[in-house]
């Protein structure tokens, strides 16, 4: 009898220990989430404050985080003091063109590398791989001089064209194509389907997840891209959002409410894309971490 009680006690103790451990983990995880989110909350609250409240402590303390009155006009003003709408359109245009170009040329080249045999293929592929570790700074300088000689500085061409061709996207899609079964393609070839037909009607539809991952990654990278547009663009009406926001900051150094409103408007599309596409994201990162 006594032994049985002991067992019950042991189980209860173990459960308690387990519960304590779980609670501790939850507390830790929640604390982590709060520290990740706090700067964003601060950003949102500042973007809605009357300007004076930014510069002074408020009482009670929580008015540091929740404005005494919500100044939605900040957003309108941020939109108007610099040509924000223009920056937005520029970014959407540049980003869409670059992303589409990168994914399209990568997919075509990846098909060639993964499925077609032609002399020099492996040597060219190795050259692609080798250039992946070259820092962007190395190629930036000659490309800049080239564009200058062509008279392309301060044009959209100069922002869009150089990053249009990536070894990275080609490599990623090639690896994905190699995992697809070849039977379908062989059957299509027997039926007289052209190479482009095979690529367009068989390979691409099968690769939708990989294409979605690559498109999402590339779009986000392009949306945030800063140094290259900064270097090649001079006139304000051509600025993309990151360059435009830096310009905004240089003009209105201490208009914090407007700067925060502008910054939030810049990251909003990225947040939406991420939240709705995060499945592709996580998959893409996992794939990248697996050797081979």
């Amino acid at each position: 009898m006594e032994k049985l009680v002991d067992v019950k006690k042991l189980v209860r103790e173990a459960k308690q220990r387990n519960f304590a451990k779980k609670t501790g983990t939850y507390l830790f995880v929640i604390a982590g989430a709060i520290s990740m989110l706090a700067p964003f909350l601060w950003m949102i609250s500042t973007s809605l404050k009357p300007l004076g409240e930014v510069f002074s402590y408020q009482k009670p303390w929580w008015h540091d985080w929740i404005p005494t009155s919500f100044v939605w006009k900040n957003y309108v003003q941020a939109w108007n003091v610099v040509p924000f709408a223009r920056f937005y359109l520029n970014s959407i245009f540049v980003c869409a063109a670059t992303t589409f170009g990168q994914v399209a040329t990568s997919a075509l080249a990846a098909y060639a590398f993964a499925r077609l045999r032609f002399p020099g293929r492996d040597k060219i592929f190795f050259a692609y791989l080798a250039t992946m570790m070259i820092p962007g700074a190395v190629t930036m300088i000659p490309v800049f001089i080239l564009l200058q000689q062509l008279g392309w500085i301060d044009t959209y061409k100069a922002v869009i064209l150089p990053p249009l061709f990536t070894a990275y996207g080609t490599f990623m899609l090639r690896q994905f194509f190699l995992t697809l079964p070849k039977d379908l393609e062989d059957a299509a070839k027997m039926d007289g389907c052209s190479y482009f037909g095979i690529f367009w009607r068989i390979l691409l539809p099968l690769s939708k997840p990989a294409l979605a991952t690559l498109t999402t990654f590339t779009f986000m990278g392009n949306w945030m891209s800063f140094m290259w547009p900064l270097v090649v663009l001079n006139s304000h009406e051509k600025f993309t959002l990151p360059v435009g926001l830096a310009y905004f900051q240089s003009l209105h150094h201490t208009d914090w409410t407007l700067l925060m409103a502008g910054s939030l408007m810049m990251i909003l599309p990225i947040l939406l894309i991420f939240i709705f596409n995060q499945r592709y994201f996580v998959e893409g990162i996992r794939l990248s971490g697996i050797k081979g």
Partner: protein
Amino acid sequence: MLASIRNRFQLRDSTKEAIAGYGFLLPNLIGFLLFTSLPVLASLALSFMQVDLIAYPKVFEIVGLENFRRLFSDPYFWKYCWNTVVLMLAIPFSIAGSLILALALNQRLKGVVFYRTIYFLPTICSGVAIYVLWRLIYNPDFGVLNTLIAKLGLLLHLPLEGPNWLQDEAWAKPALIMMAVWQTVGGYNMILYLAALQGVPRDLYEAAEIDGASSWQKFWAVTWPQISPTTFFIATMSIIGGFQGGFDQAYIMTGGGPNGATTTIIYYIFNNFYEWQRMGYAAAISWILFIAIFVITLIKWRAFGRTVHYY
């Protein structure tokens, strides 16, 4: 007979395939040649030249190793190399943090996806907007960080006062390091760690439990060795990124200052090439950077074989 005539007029299948191959490759290859491989060679050539594009006629003068000689006796170059290395102190903190977060999320909690999404936000949003935000957070007079420090001081009855983060030579680097840890800790590395943790075989833990190992012992004897390839991969990738990093945040938050304390190698390249139009000198620095990265890549290859990883 008929077949041989047809053969003469029709391309062989392998030739057709080769033509198709080059055709598919071409759009990418043109860009690759024009904007990557030829520029690499051009950049090497530039590093042995003195270039003046403003003069008329333009000057492209071969000066041999002069750029590199100047570089090695350029105290600013060494200072900025040092800055770059110091800013990389963020890496061990970030990796340790990523692992701890991954271990916590791996405990079969409810709402893992929710937490993972939140942890990823700083990484996904990193860029000019976030740097403008952190410039406000680090504001000495009304930034949220110093406000909190002051409130903590009131609470403890201590005269606590936050530093002038971004304008103080001693505090600018720690400020950027803290921000970098916040930015990266819940990002790619944490997700790689989560995947790695899920790949550790269960029976290893069971065997350790039978031997009476504590959680702490299980971590060091099973988890840590099992996920060490991931750790090594993350570390090398972070170092490669670190060598090339530091421009966007310094440009937005400090302008490279105070007194050059946050200027990194890439920022120095930018200044030489864009602000001062010293193309040859900038190209020489970029090649030194390339060599540093190449060495790290070789070490990585040694460990992993020649597989290419990408983010």
